[in-house]
């Protein structure tokens, strides 16, 4: 029982981090119909920015956490300007999707290459800014950093969901996703909305970077990228495009992976998300919670 609770808790915590990544990707997808394959590098950059703040400038973790959204928003806007904005006006439809895939992939590779030039590829260690000692409540053992991760993720996911579902900004975002020209005629500003989505997505990515160094970590230029593909799986489970679905998908996936690692085989646990992705897409191409919409 104790083992089960510990396993589920750690699954929940890593799932919460994945959910934040997923919400960032889904935000951009909702507003622009683009998938940012360089989002993993937003996380990596966020991790390095946290590293600089914590170990070189000796700031407290709270200051780093508060500054991170601004760093991330700047990264997000820069990515939009480099890998997205120049390519949308010219081509339309499926071709645009392919172009953005290629440009964001190239950006991702380029940033990884740049980081290998300026950072240590063998890895840079960051000590945990928090005491690791965990709290015990009955069978539940939970570390302070896990609680903080859960709280921060829950708050941010909640805020993002409220913005997309309940505000005028979110409504404009969804309208632009459906038909940018019609939405623009009705007064929405597609360029502004797209920039807001990229900035918000970047901010979330950088916060994820800060949360990931919380327990202490070894950073390499390739730290963020693997997270991205697991997150995609979670987002696909949720139907790619709904924030709630993506969050549930990521939590489910992460807990399933931890349980598999705990009870079946830790060696093959890395395969679980991809196996689930392949099975889900083969059976229900629109995801578990996605609606089946045929576009002709």
């Amino acid at each position, binding site marked *: 029982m104790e083992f089960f609770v510990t396993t589920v808790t750690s699954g929940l915590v890593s799932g919460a981090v994945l959910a934040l990544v997923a919400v960032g990707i889904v935000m951009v997808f909702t507003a622009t119909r683009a998938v940012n394959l360089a989002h993993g590098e937003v996380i990596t950059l966020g991790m390095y920015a946290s590293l600089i703040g914590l170990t070189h400038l000796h700031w407290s973790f709270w200051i780093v956490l508060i500054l991170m959204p601004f760093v991330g928003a700047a990264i997000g806007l820069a990515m939009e300007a480099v890998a997205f904005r120049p390519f949308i006006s010219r081509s339309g439809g499926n071709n645009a999707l392919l172009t953005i895939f*290629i440009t964001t992939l190239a950006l991702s590779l380029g940033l990884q290459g740049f980081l290998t030039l300026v950072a240590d590829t063998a890895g840079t260690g960051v000590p945990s800014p928090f005491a690791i000692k965990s709290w015990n409540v009955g069978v539940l053992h939970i570390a302070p950093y896990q609680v903080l991760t859960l709280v921060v993720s829950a708050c941010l996911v909640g805020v993002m969901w409220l913005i997309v579902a309940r505000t005028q900004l979110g409504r404009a975002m969804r309208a632009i996703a459906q038909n940018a020209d019609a939405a623009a005629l009705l007064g929405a500003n597609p360029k502004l909305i797209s920039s807001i989505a990229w900035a918000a997505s970047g901010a979330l990515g950088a916060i994820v970077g800060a949360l990931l160094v919380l327990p202490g970590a070894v950073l390499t230029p390739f730290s963020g990228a693997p997270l991205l593909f697991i997150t*995609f799986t979670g987002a696909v489970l949720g139907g790619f495009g709904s924030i709630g679905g993506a969050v549930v998908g990521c939590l489910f996936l992460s807990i399933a992976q931890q349980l598999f690692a705990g009870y079946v085989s830790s060696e*093959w646990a890395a*395969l679980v998300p*991809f196996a689930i992705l392949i099975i889900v897409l*083969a059976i229900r*191409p629109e995801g578990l919670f996605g609606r089946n919409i045929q576009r002709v």
Partner: protein
Amino acid sequence: MAPVQTEFTPAAAASDVRTPESRRLGRPVVHVLWLALLLPYLLGPVPLFKVTSVVLLILVAIGYNLIIGYAGQFVVVSAAVMGVGAYATAFFMGHWGLAVLPAILLAACLSGGLGALTGLLTVRLSGIYLALMSVGLAEAAGIVMERWTAVTGGENGLAVTGISIAGQSPPSPVAMYTLVLVFTALGILVSWLLVSGQWGRLLKAVAHNELAARSAGIDVEATKRTVLVVGFFYFGLAGGLSAIVNGFLAPDDFSLTVAINHLAMVVIGGMGTFIGPILGAIVVGGIPQLLSFSKGYETVLFAAAVFFVVIFVPEGLAAGPRRLWRSLRRNIALRAAAVRGSQP
């Protein structure tokens, strides 16, 4: 990338019949291949080895071009399937005692079969779902290569044993070069036959407008499955050859990053053209070999090159120098006008 026509019209199909660049360029390519036979007399063993690994990439680029460039199926699995071909070749030689040629061919056929299985999973998907499915498959294959230590040797890598070409063991660089060149020449010939005929038009019809292709009586699913089988065969062949040439396999050589590098070859060369992947493989594969940068610089330059091509010369190198120059000037003018317009 060439601008994709959103509607499939008889005129679009007819233009492919009138001026297929594959017809124009078939003969020059054959002459280049003849000249390539002279390289062993001009180069020492080390440069020849580098040339061999670049020539090998042509097979990968052709496979990608058929799947993505012609059929429009965004399936980013080249490196993973190469891995399957490479490890299968090593396995067939090491455990079953097969000779080099049958091992490579069997591994390529196995990869082709894998293409058929992949087709079963992917034909219903499109857009991001297709891309994510392929990423999932590639990542899953990568994890298997890393963890299935009994066959792949895991992260420590695997030394390929029993390599012998025409009685030479280990084979000389010249023998390996000749082996790779022969397979690549055959690969180019087959792709030329495939894309300059009806099948090439079939693929383009499916890529341009699935609905129109379907209503014209084309079996879209069968076409997609076939192109995956053919493309995967090319990847598997390249993988098997790389096992022979390198003599050592590690999972890192078949990661998603490598697959993205392969994709860049096709993008820079020119998608959906006959000559594009060949040029792309030579340029993208060859320049790093010539300059031997550190890995970081190489990746940064690479990304910059992809951006440059997508922004300024979307047709890729296949357009030829004159059209490239025109396209470059036009796109620079367009960009300049856009910048002036947005900053009054």
